[in-house]
């Protein structure tokens, strides 16, 4: 396996090192200064996540107000490095209880050092699963041997745990109420021309689970995807029910999914880890149901006036509604005055991002609100460069709607003791990069 990192740095937005860990001594401790002076303080920040300075490669990403920088001096596996960062952040979040930012890091120095020691060794990523690490790396203080008797808890054996047949689940779990939560989260990426034709569109989806189940349960999940349904219709030798089937691309499963059974029987069956985990990921490119259609008309009237008309149409069911819809309509930098008329929500001009920002908190299905705005520009000294017209960006969340049309057909839980379980299923569709050219 190739090296993923020689050193990892956590920096705040000003470029101060919050915490760092050197895994190999082939990079100097001052290399991060090069990052600060050559990347952070230039305009290139944010243009390319991989940069090479002075024989070292810097991989960086920003998470809330923290830059995580990985420095390597050899030919490293970039994808592996970024995956490591993402997983590490997920791990920290699960330890800190959700938030990962500068303050969280400052408050958890010791814990982070412990975790950094554990999750990577000499530049090679190790076990990053929060469930397992939490068994061994805890925030309990050191117990004085004289204060109380030693605990009865058996000392967990890490080796056995990791190398066992079901390495991701402990035995002997008991819950009073056996529950399973299943979320299907999809994000839609779209690039649409101003005429309304789709230039690029895909959906990336995740199936997230949270299990509170006793013992060693065996779960089976059925979706309305093509492979599963075909298999089923063959088995039962009867035509499938009406309704469309979904073709999933690039499906990735959590390690708990039994792949041999998936290959032979085409069913997703697994022994789940305890707590939260991501069961599978997928992508679809065909047959996407777009939740919104945007029809912009932006007219430049002379040198100093622009007329903006934007119509947004929600094309999901009338009973559903979208939340937190934000539409950002770019305007030229020299915008001086704006006036709006909107049929719902609120709009204002944000000079910091050079956009008209139109916010609609609750957006019911099958409606068509419009915005019309007049923008006045100030005349400038410099030769008027023609405005580049960046695309309109949109943010939203639509609960109980999947852009792919994916549905859970069944989720069966089977355990030796045969207890009853409660299953909860949710769907949500979010905007990825949802852009409409204007």
């Amino acid at each position, binding site marked *: 396996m190739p090296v993923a990192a020689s050193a990892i740095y956590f920096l705040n*937005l000003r470029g101060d090192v919050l915490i760092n860990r050197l895994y190999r001594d082939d990079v100097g401790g001052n290399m991060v200064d090069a990052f600060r002076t050559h990347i952070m*303080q230039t305009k290139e920040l944010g243009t390319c996540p991989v940069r090479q300075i002075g024989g070292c490669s810097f991989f960086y990403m920003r998470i809330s107000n923290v830059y995580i920088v990985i420095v390597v001096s050899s030919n490293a596996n970039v994808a592996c490095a970024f995956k490591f960062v993402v997983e590490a952040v997920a791990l920290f979040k699960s330890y800190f209880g959700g938030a990962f930012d500068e303050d969280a890091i400052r408050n958890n120095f010791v814990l982070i050092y412990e975790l950094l020691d554990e999750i990577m060794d000499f530049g090679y990523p190790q076990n990053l699963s929060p469930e397992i690490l939490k068994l061994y790396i805890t925030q309990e203080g050191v117990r004085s041997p004289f204060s109380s008797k030693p605990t009865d808890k058996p000392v967990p054996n890490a080796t056995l745990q990791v190398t066992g047949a079901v390495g991701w689940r402990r035995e002997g779990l008991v819950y009073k109420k056996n529950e399973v939560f299943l979320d299907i989260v999809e994000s839609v990426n779209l690039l649409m021309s101003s005429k309304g034709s789709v230039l690029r569109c895909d959906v990336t989806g995740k199936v997230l689970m949270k299990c509170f189940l006793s013992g060693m349960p065996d779960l089976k999940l059925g979706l309305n995807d093509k492979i599963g349904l075909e298999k089923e219709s063959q088995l039962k030798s009867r035509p499938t029910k009406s309704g469309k089937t979904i073709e999933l691309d690039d499906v990735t499963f959590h390690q708990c999914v039994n792949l041999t059974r998936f290959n032979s029987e085409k069913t997703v069956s697994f022994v789940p880890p305890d707590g939260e985990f991501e069961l599978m990921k997928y992508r679809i490119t065909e047959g996407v149901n777009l939740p919104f259609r945007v029809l912009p008309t932006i007219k430049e009237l002379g040198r100093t006036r622009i007329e903006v008309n934007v119509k947004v149409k929600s094309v999901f069911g009338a009973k559903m509604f979208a939340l937190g819809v934000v539409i950002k309509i770019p305007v030229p930098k020299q915008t*001086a005055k704006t006036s709006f008329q909107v049929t719902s929500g609120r709009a204002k*001009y944000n000079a910091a991002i*050079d956009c008209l920002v139109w916010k609609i908190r609750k957006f019911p299905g099958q409606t068509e609100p419009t915005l019309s705005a007049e923008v006045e520009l100030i*005349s*400038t*000294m410099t030769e008027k460069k023609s405005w580049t017209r960046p695309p309109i960006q949109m943010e939203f969340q639509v609960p109980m709607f999947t852009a792919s049309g994916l549905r859970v057909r069944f989720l069966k839980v089977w355990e030796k003791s045969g207890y009853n379980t409660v299953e909860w299923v949710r769907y949500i569709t979010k905007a990825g990069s949802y852009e409409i050219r204007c």
Partner: protein
Amino acid sequence: MALSGMRGLSVFISDIRNCQNKEQERLRVDKELGNVRTRFKNEKGLTPYEKKKYVWKMLYIYMLGYDVDFGHMEAVSLISAPKYPEKQVGYIVTACLLNENHDFLRIAINTVRNDIIGRNETFQCLALTMVGNIGGREFAESLAPDVQKLLISSSYRPLVRKKAALCLLRLYRKNPDVVNVDGWADRMAQLLDERDLGVLTSSMSLLVALVSNHYDAYWSCLPKCVKILERLARNQDIPQEYTYYGIPSPWLQVRTMRALQYFPTVEDPNTRRSLFEVLQRILMGTDVVKNVNKNNASHAVLFEALALVMHLDAEKEMMSQCVALLGKFIAVREPNIRYLGLENMTRMLMVTDVQDIIKRHQAQIITSLKDPDISIRRRALDLLYGMCDVSNAKDIVEELLQYLSTADFAMREELSLKAAILAEKFAPDLSWYVDVILQLIDKAGDFVSDDIWFRVVQFVTNNEDLQPYAAAKAREYLDKPAIHETMVKVSAYIIGEFGHLLARRPGCSPKELFSVIHEKLPAVTTSTVPILLSTYAKIFMHTQPPDQELQNQIWSIFNKYESCIDVEIQQRAAEYLALSRRGAALVDILAEMPKFPERQSALIKKAEDTEVDTAEQSAIKLRAQQQTSSALVVTDQRPANGTPPVNQLGLVKMPSMSSNADHNSTDQGSSQENGTLSQVDPQAPAADILGDLLGPLAIEGPPTTAGEPQQNVIPGLGGDPDAVDASAIVPVGEEQNSVQPIGNIAERFHALCLKDSGVLYEDPNIQIGIKAEWRLHQGCFVLFLGNKNTSPLVSVQAIILPPSHLKMELSLVPDTIPPRAQVQCPLEVVNLRPSRDVAVLDFSYKFGNNMVNVKLRLPAVLNKFLQPIPVSAEEFFPQWRSLSGPPLKLQEVVRGVKPMPLVEMANLLNSFRLMVCPALDPNPNNLVASTTFYSESTRAMLCLVRIETDPADRTQLRMTVASGDPSLTLELKEFIKEQLVIMPTARAPGPVPPAPPVAQPTSPVSALTDPGAMLAGLL
């Protein structure tokens, strides 16, 4: 400031200061810019207060580095506001945001003008400041007269007039036309009568700028300047507020003396006397005191006075007084003063002949070399380097060597370089030079660049007397237990080449030499191994009779390295092995290296480069640099050990093959060269040219020990050293801007047709020298492109347009020539067949904004491929007869020949490498010459020439040319004809001797039968 009232502005600034990072700051700025835009767009208009506030914000944002491309209108409109606070913002922001090319400024011009001609002083000052800061052409054209009026009229307060003077200065720098009005010089002179010192200081700044460009118009100001200096020096009527620590206005003193330095001389004896009195007073009155500020001020005045003294070439007495003063300075404890003392001493050294006086302080300077402060050590090193000459070179170099082992690491490289150069330049004898360099390598091997040891090798190879000594020395050093790798390289090379010269000495048998060198092999790096392999091969070759054991040893080493991973080593090993198996043939192949072509010392070039970097562009420095080189020439010329003065040009080594034939022509050529230099070249630093030509001789050592005296002393040139001296002390004026070639290009070309080195082309920016060597049908030019300026020449391009008969290959010419540097571009020439066509060099470069392009003929002419051979009568006549009739033998009657005596014609032929064979022809009026022509197609070809002159009519002659190749015959005949008809104009024809008896044409029959000759005769 006025900001206190503006809450919005201070809130904004504190917001910005509280930003944690750049991104927050950017967001805040963008937000504020949006706000400002909205405000400016507001139809209702802004109150003056609001406008002022937002324009201040804009300026603040602009100063933070963000683009502000709007709001200029608002800023400009504030200029016309009636109140001071608004006007001030308007002026400041306009000056900051707009540059001279902005259209918006046109709107402002009228308002600004109104302010300038108005009676409100504050507004006048604001407007003048803004005009000075922007200072574009439009401002200059429309406002300069008003500004001049302000400056001249005495009805305004000094405050305004000061500003006006400075404003005019700024405008002048941008656009010199502003003061090109009639009578400005007189007004300037009147201004200098001003009593107010503030106005005077500002006007003096203006004057300095004016005279730095043209001093001619301002002669009338000179006595006034001296008067001002007098007034200051006597402390007459100086108001208290212009006295700084008891010194009357040091700033004005310095400026005035700076202005005086731009005038070439002070002619009026009275003025000169009073000026020297003042200088004397300054020199006498300055001393080191406790107070730092007072010291600073008085020293500033003093050093400027020193510069002026140097400039004026004062009497020796004053100079020695200066040096004495500086000597006092360098003995002071205070490092700053010592530094200044050393620096100025270095400067003095460059200008005048005070070396002997400075030498008295040598001990003190050497002590400064051990100062704890490195900048002082550097100065001391520079000074030592500068003051070194033949008389004290030995002491100084030894001192430097001693110091080397304790010197700072940062200095060692420079130190060793300088020691090497000094040793090279002033070596009393060459063995001393070798000693010094070997010591140098021994002591500071890491800091000795390759150039230094290459140079030693060149030296030793070129000087046979030195070889045994160097070899013995190298052998000694090899005995040391741990020696530096550079030492291994140089010793191995020298032993390989010259080790056999030591054969008789104990411990120097080939076997012993081999073993002592071979000991070093395991410890050296790959770059040294090839040198060692060559050494082994050479030792092996010199082993007579062959030693079986040594042979086996060496072969096994070659065998081992034959599979080395390094290509260079592998190739050498393989080739040496193969060669050494061939036995006797080895001796030819591995014979001693030929002598190196003379070239400019790479070391000196390197040192020049580093010096130029630190060069400041002030007038005094420029002058000093120009004079440095002449000083150098003078030291070179100083007779060492009482030998008679030697013409420097004679030292340029002629290629040995042509030295006999060329002797006379060289003589003439070089005298011509000197003549042209001293005649046409008063503008450019003549010493530079000499410096370039003298480049090669730096390694020749002192004249006493240089190899061949007949090359050094050329008879009949007694007057020339004077000419050289004269040209060296020609006053150096400002550089010309227009690029006119110096000297006649055609003349230079003709001169170069006869000799092999000289100047091909020269203008104020560049000098192209040429040096050629010819061997059979091949030749090698080296073009020396010398930049004479202190700024680099860019876009340098040289393209050769060769005629069809020459194959020419020019090596890469660098795109830029660094300041005051010389680059060499070798050019290979191969002659394919005889032809008279001339190759053309299309040369272009860019200086400033001028593109200069010249087309130069290259002296690769027919006669360069001739090789004179003497022919006896027995050889001549059979040849002459065997080549009968056209096209192998051509005859022609040439008319319109430049009349010249027969002897001179013989010389001319000789200079074309046509060897005149006396007494072959019975008729004394005829000349017979022979030569060999080389080209790729004809190989060596004998050519015979016969010229029959008519003593009665010297303008015509008959010429017969014969050779084995028809085209060669034709070309050679035409060539000689051209040369006889079109003579180089520089040659003065000698007195025509009394006409010898009439000669009969020897072969009238052949002349009639020869159609070519008939035709030529008819034409």
